[in-house]
């Protein structure tokens, strides 16, 4: 609670509301249970920032890194791809099925303007990290104060 920020909380609430209504009416029931029955969003994402970059982390287990598409439009980043379902073997018996398979696409809003020329993405062990450099004018500027 030490660094509780009202504006950040409000922003997160707005994101949650956007997220809820984005899927409204179109295949909500299909989206639910995609990665696992308890989650209706895929992939799960974290957004972090420092003074020069914005980092978007996404959990994409079982997705071939070469098949992940990352695209940026203004201040929104879209991550899409496909998790291929394993081939059914003859005479198989399913004891437990908690994993989801199929195509996914998700767009998330970034907390600031970015330089679209400076974007890198890497996926290691099913964790995708997209690093987006902030636009020059969006970076905090340090102004020296001179004593007269």
């Amino acid at each position, binding site marked *: 609670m030490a660094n509780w920020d009202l504006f*950040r909380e409000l*922003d*997160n609430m707005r*994101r949650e509301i956007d997220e809820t209504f984005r899927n409204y009416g179109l295949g909500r029931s299909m989206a639910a249970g995609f*990665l*696992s029955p308890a989650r209706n*969003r895929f992939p*799960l*994402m*974290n*957004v*972090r*920032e*420092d003074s020069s*970059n*914005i*980092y978007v*982390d996404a*959990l*994409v*287990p*079982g*997705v*071939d*890194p070469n098949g992940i598409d990352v695209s940026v439009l203004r201040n929104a980043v879209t991550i899409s791809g496909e998790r291929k379902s*394993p081939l059914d*073997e*003859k*005479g*198989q*018996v*399913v*004891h*437990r*099925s*908690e*994993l989801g398979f199929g195509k996914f696409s998700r767009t*998330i809003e970034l*907390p600031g303007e970015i330089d679209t020329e400076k974007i890198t993405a890497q*996926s290691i*062990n*099913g*964790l995708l990290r997209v690093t987006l450099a902030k636009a020059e004018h969006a970076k905090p500027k340090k102004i020296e104060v001179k004593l007269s």
Partner: protein
Amino acid sequence: MAANEVAPNVERNVRPREETRAFEKYLKPAVNIIEVEDSLVLTADLPGAGKETLDINVEKGILTINAGVSTEAPGRPVYTEFELAPYYRQFQVPESLNNEKARAEYADGVLTLRLAKPEAAKPRKIQVTGG
């Protein structure tokens, strides 16, 4: 088939491993368990886990999956949907499984474990000869 049923232990998402000793949180990975002709195939999602931190063992009919994750991330959080924590989950498996022939693979955050069934449990086809 009932003899090869795999039953999980206590289920909860993130839980302290031993309430009094460790304060660390653990995540329970989601799994698929499929039985095929000659083996039992367990697929677990462990995104963020390093291959070298994986620890899988079978002891007295208990299969334990343990994996560490690197939780370091640059910057400060803006919006958070997931948390990374070490993975931990146990399953009861038939003691008759052939552990010598168990194989594990790890790619793109997914662990695939193949446990070979004992010879006696494999389906056997008997040829009928007409006379």
